């Protein structure tokens, strides 16, 4: 079965992202399954970044270690990644810029820069040359590339477009003519139905749009920024205002103001920005104001490794904010989950009048897969505003004490009723109180919402036999790589299952307890240092895992990494 891995290395500013994105699209459109991810530094030019594309016949959910084709845009990329090449692998490099890689049969020297300059006079076209060269080497059709370049550069000057296509063609022809025969791997476009090549952040943004989000306020922060950027481009088409706030304190407070006033409102940030939002999170709790917060994690503490990945904020997200209040935490493991859970987040935030967190990370945020288009048919925008019905027509009480814990919500200004809420403990009509019985009643009322919430939990997803010998447990972005590990082990005849948590709070206690009973060995896999889900699991159920495989170097797991440690 085809499973081909391309890695493009170079400096920030050399356009790896463009090549990577374009090649990924070509293969996606060509009917392959792709998984692409990137590793970049916190700088705009220079340094060392890479982009990997896994092209496979079957669906793939994670990156892999070994490389079939390395496209080295600079010398450092050869040094950094040559060791990852398979024996049958090859390197595209530019001997005018880099010393040739040592002792390797697949050395494909292509004068990238020279061809770029010849084609259009500019070094920046190197990425088009390299894209072409890769396709030439693989014996792939040139047309899909031409078409994509058209689409990408159609808004630029016509010379730029022509030059890029010329550059790509030159690379294609050079590679085809000189090396295609020496490279064993070949790919051909297949007939296919359209798929979505999408990353985690885009999926969150689409999920928000599908939920009728019409207010988004945030402060830029890697790796969350691209959610804001995507939505900003859709303001007019989707009737959503995207506000760049002066800081994260403002961002979440604006979201709460908008939500209170009737909007479906969201923010997105990473750990440091989220830390600044914790006071307002608590405000959402006591004022019972719906809010959706995407917390796209990166390694901390503080600035940490700002462009890398980690799952270090689970317990922080769970306990963030002073005082005790209700929340839901979704932990999507794929673009699909990111989309559907973000959509669901808005409906639940509205229904229960609580903050809902989408806990993602840089790895999920920036990785592309090509997936089946989302099924929109069943999606609804459930708003839970009260009608100004007889029972509320007299004296409306924003925080009426109810059996479900949910009080009727009205939009201020839309009726003669007054919508009053308060960060202090308050009476049913929202006015501050120091009545201690009311306090207890209000705390209990809010806590009762969990009854409803528990009934619509996203259960942990068990894949594989219930009576497995080995259960690999994870949450969030590790879902894909764990599924690959499970597949591989089962292919070897082992009895291994996966337990993935798309929701960690409220914690699906009952389900887990049942599942744990049936399996032998339980191993937790987390991208952090302390095994946070294990702590939560034990706190909630008393259950322990037998082992943990942890990683906290800022990079995602690979199947090989996990397999070595099992």
């Amino acid at each position, binding site marked *: 079965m085809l499973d081909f891995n391309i890695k493009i290395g170079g400096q920030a500013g050399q356009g790896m992202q463009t090549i990577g994105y374009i090649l990924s699209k070509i293969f996606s459109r060509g009917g392959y399954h792709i998984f692409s991810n990137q590793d970049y530094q916190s700088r705009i030019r220079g340094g060392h970044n890479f982009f990997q594309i896994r092209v496979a016949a079957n669906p793939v959910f994670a990156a892999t270690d070994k490389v079939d084709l390395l496209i080295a845009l600079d010398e450092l990329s050869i040094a950094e990644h040559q060791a990852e090449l398979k024996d049958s692998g090859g390197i595209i490099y530019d001997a005018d810029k880099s010393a040739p890689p040592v002792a390797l049969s697949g050395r494909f020297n292509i004068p990238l820069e020279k061809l770029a300059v010849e084609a259009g006079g500019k070094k920046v076209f190197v990425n088009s040359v390299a894209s072409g060269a890769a396709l030439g080497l693989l014996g792939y059709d040139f047309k899909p590339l031409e078409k994509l370049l058209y689409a990408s550069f159609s808004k630029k000057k016509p010379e730029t477009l022509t030059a890029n296509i010329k550059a790509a063609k030159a690379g294609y022809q050079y590679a085809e003519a000189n090396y295609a025969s020496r490279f064993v791997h070949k790919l051909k476009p297949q007939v296919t139905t359209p798929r979505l090549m999408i990353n985690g952040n885009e999926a969150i943004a689409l999920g928000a749009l599908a939920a009728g989000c*019409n*207010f988004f306020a945030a402060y830029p922060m890697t790796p969350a920024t691209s959610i804001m950027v995507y939505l900003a481009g859709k303001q007019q088409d989707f009737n959503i205002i995207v506000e760049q706030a002066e800081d994260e304190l403002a961002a979440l*407070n604006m979201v709460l103001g908008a939500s209170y006033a009737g909007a479906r409102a969201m923010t997105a940030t990473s750990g440091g920005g989220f830390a600044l939002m914790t006071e307002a999170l608590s405000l959402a709790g006591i004022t019972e104001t719906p809010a959706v917060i995407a917390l796209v994690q990166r390694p901390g503490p503080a600035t940490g490794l700002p462009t890398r990945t980690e799952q270090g904020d689970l317990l922080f997200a769970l306990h963030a904010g002073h005082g005790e209040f209700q929340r839901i935490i979704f932990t999507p493991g794929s673009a699909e989950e990111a989309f559907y859970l973000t959509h669901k987040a808005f409906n639940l935030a509205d229904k229960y009048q609580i903050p809902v967190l989408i806990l993602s990370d840089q790895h999920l945020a920036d990785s592309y897969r090509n997936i089946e288009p989302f099924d929109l048919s069943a999606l609804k925008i459930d708003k839970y505003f009260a009608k100004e019905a007889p029972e509320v027509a007299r004296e409306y009480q924003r925080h009426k004490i109810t059996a479900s814990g949910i009080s009727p919500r009205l939009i201020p200004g839309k009726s003669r009723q007054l919508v009053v809420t308060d960060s202090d403990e308050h009476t049913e009509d929202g006015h501050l109180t120091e009545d201690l019985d009311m306090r207890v009643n209000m705390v209990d009322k809010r806590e009762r919402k969990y009854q409803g919430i528990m009934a619509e939990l996203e259960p942990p997803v068990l894949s594989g036999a219930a009576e497995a010998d080995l259960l690999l447990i994870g949450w969030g972005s590790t879902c894909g790589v764990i599924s690959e590990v499970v597949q591989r082990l089962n292919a070897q005849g082992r009895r291994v299952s996966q337990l993935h948590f798309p929701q960690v709070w409220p914690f699906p206690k009952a389900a887990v307890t049942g599942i744990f009973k049936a399996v032998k060995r339980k191993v937790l896999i987390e991208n952090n240092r302390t095994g946070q889900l294990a702590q939560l699991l034990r706190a909630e159920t008393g259950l322990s895992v037998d082992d943990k495989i942890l990683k906290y170097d800022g990079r995602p797991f690979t199947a090989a990494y996990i397999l070595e440690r099992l």
Partner: protein
Amino acid sequence: MNQTPFDNDVAPAWCPGCGNFMILTALKKALSGLDLKPSQVLICSGIGQAAKLPHYMKCNTFNGLHGRSIPVASGARLVNPELVVMAEGGDGDIYGEGGNHFMHAIRKNINITLLAHNNQVYGLTKGQASPTSEPGFTTKVQTEGVKISMLDPLTTALSLNAGFVARSFSGDIEHLAGVIQQAIGYRGFSLVDILMPCVSFNKLNTFKWYKSRVYKLEDINWDTSNKPAAYEKAEEWGEKIPIGIFYKQARPAYEDLVSVLKGKPLIDREYSPQKVGELFEEFN
């Protein structure tokens, strides 16, 4: 006291003699004078003595966090522009903890009105210095007296290209109500800094102190369109303290500049999950 549709029957938890009572009266007077109904008004307040105000009247209320009334008001206004939206709180609340929002909201010019109850002290936390406390003002924390330059919110607002900059005094209800009405009438961000005595913790800037100093800009036929003059006037603080509208300029409100905000309020528009399907092509 005249009854207004904004009256409620909650007894304020303020000290007898506190300037906040007068501000409350003036605000209710201003709103009813504009023929507004309580349900048309939203007051977003922070935390402090001043920020308790919306509990003592009828209106939509979001009584949020210390320092954060402005972003809440801004968010609400952008999506629900049929409301008259005000942010309200004390000097510590708005100029101290909330200083960053104060700065940037002025630049952004969303159509909200800011009422800053300026008693030059932290009332609710029992008398520490606020950004507007005068140098030398002694408290249990500022044991040697304030050693920091006094913030003049008006000057700073001017420096940020504010469109409507005013000051009034709790002791002159007519004047205050008038200024508030004009502030609400201004389309854009309007600042009303309101001098008021705190009888419990500010023994320096008392009612008498203010009363004997304030004079009205109207009375000197002030030209509200002259910015350099406004700067100079705003710095006048001592034997005489001017109140009134210092400066006013026509500046488009934020919501008049941003395309998506034009037309129907966002909260009244139609949304459909299926519309997302239109975007799928982008991703193929």
